[in-house]
């Protein structure tokens, strides 16, 4: 539905939001995930704090106990994203071989991206047998039997972005079958993906290059029609690109779903805010505090009572990777920083390989 075709649905808004000082900001946090208990966060942090050469680690933080744990994963890799399964009993992650910083080395490494799966306690670690190529953002299905992830193509060196042509692929863990979930749509870029049901998911993606080519349409025209939305609802096997959703709000992106199917996302109306779109179409809005830069990843807790997010420190650029972490209490409309302890203070969780 075109946003211009109907009036805007009712919305509520919190004025003059406040965000306390964030002692942990300025670190390189990525790809936040939340356990279904709403208490534990999973995320990646890249840092040189533990080793001079630097590393990207999978970390687990308990909001009440304020304890940080680090999975002791094989050291030959940089870990690029991680998420809890819907039941919280598994962790799925993407990783690339350690590489030098020159572009050829980076490209070579990302062509060898792997997706790993383990139980949340660090046991039964194993690698999924998938085709070569860049992969990121894996997520586990509601029944725990499938893993969906983004697969992309490497671009020529010195392109604007490192990779493009993103599509969702899915591996059946029972059969080992790995196939396109829907499309191909060849998105220019992506953010989150999450299963809505056994056969549907909500994804954040922008710039459907295949669709635009097929319909001889420019992104400029597409954006005007759909209010710059980058949120879609896919069904398994869909060959045709569905219309974007959440078009009531300009520039919707980074979607996340709670257990009732409400969609939370990032957008602007008129200022940049977090939004909740209920199943009945009602939109609730929380205006982003000024102290927070752009939101880089976010996830709603399964009960919808909180939204956890990472953000760019104001005044820095995305590639500077200076991030903070925070949460929004959706019932009290309160924003607060999450003071993640330093990596040096983290406890370790041993990881045991599958025999």
């Amino acid at each position, binding site marked *: 539905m075109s946003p211009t075709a109907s009036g805007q649905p009712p919305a509520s808004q919190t004025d003059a939001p406040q965000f306390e000082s964030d002692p942990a900001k300025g670190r390189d946090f990525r790809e936040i995930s939340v356990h279904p208990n709403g208490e534990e966060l999973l995320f990646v942090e890249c840092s040189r704090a533990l080793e001079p050469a630097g590393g990207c680690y999978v970390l687990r933080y308990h909001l009440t106990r304020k304890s940080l744990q680090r999975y002791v994963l094989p050291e030959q890799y940089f870990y690029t994203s991680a998420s809890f399964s819907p039941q919280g009993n598994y962790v799925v992650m993407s990783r690339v071989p350690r590489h030098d910083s020159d572009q050829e080395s980076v490209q070579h490494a990302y062509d060898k991206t792997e997706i790993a799966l383990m139980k949340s306690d660090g046991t039964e670690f194993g690698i999924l047998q998938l085709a070569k190529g860049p992969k990121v953002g894996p997520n586990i299905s509601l029944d725990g039997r499938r893993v969906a992830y983004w697969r*992309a193509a490497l671009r020529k060196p*010195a392109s604007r972005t490192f990779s493009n042509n993103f599509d969702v692929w899915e591996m059946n863990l029972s059969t080992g079958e790995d196939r396109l979930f829907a499309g191909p749509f060849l998105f220019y870029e992506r953010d989150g993906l999450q299963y809505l049901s056994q056969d549907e998911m909500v994804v954040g993606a922008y710039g459907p290059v295949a669709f635009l080519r097929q319909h001889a349409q*420019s992104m400029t025209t597409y954006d005007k029609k759909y209010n710059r939305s980058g949120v879609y609802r896919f069904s398994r096997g869909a060959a045709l690109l569905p219309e974007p959703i959440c078009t009531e709000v300009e520039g919707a992106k980074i979607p996340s779903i709670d257990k009732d199917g409400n969609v939370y996302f990032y957008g602007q109306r008129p200022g940049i805010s977090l939004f909740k779109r209920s199943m009945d179409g009602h939109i609730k809005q929380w205006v982003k505090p000024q102290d927070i830069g752009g939101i880089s990843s976010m996830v709603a807790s399964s009960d919808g009572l909180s939204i956890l997010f990472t953000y760019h420190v104001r005044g820095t650029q*995305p590639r*500077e990777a200076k991030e903070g972490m925070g949460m929004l209490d959706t019932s009290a409309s309160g924003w607060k920083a999450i003071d993640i302890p330093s990596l040096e203070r983290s406890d370790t969780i041993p990881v045991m390989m599958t025999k």
Partner: protein
Amino acid sequence: MADSSVIGIKGFSILDPSTWLPVFGNWGGPGWSGGQRTTEPLSDVLLNIGAIEIPGRDGQDRQSPLDAIFKVHDINYSVANGLPNEASLKFQADLQLMQGIAGLSLSTGDLTNLSNDMYDPSGAPTGWPRLSSFPGDGGFYGAANQNTNGEIFAVMRGMENSLLDAGAIAQVKLGLEPCMSDCGDICHS
């Protein structure tokens, strides 16, 4: 750290002509992405990079419409790559870029942060023929000019209260191939 919410020459190198051109935000300018030039090694290579966010007059952040236009221009180029009418599609993308910029309105406050550090070259050189023009309501006047090597530049002249200082001229090299058969009145024949 360079402030990317203003148009300016950043990362200038005399050895790299692409750095002689102005950049803006996360997407505006040749070889410019995420507030950096992408010829540098990339550390966060699967990053989703939105348009830069700037405060509006009401104090609330917005995505810069200018930067969003630059980003869409990049996607339009990606759509064009490898197609039989690639040159024509890229030409149209360049036109949409310029028309989009010209169509930005000062009244929304979206451009209020762009008043400093302006790219202020001496002006369009004498002898560059004007191929087309894009008068807009953004307070400046845009035109496409071709230099003596056949390269096409968008040249924007600032008017009073405009994005550019009054009288200032900004040049942006366009990825056009001149003398195409389907490029309408902008074609130099």
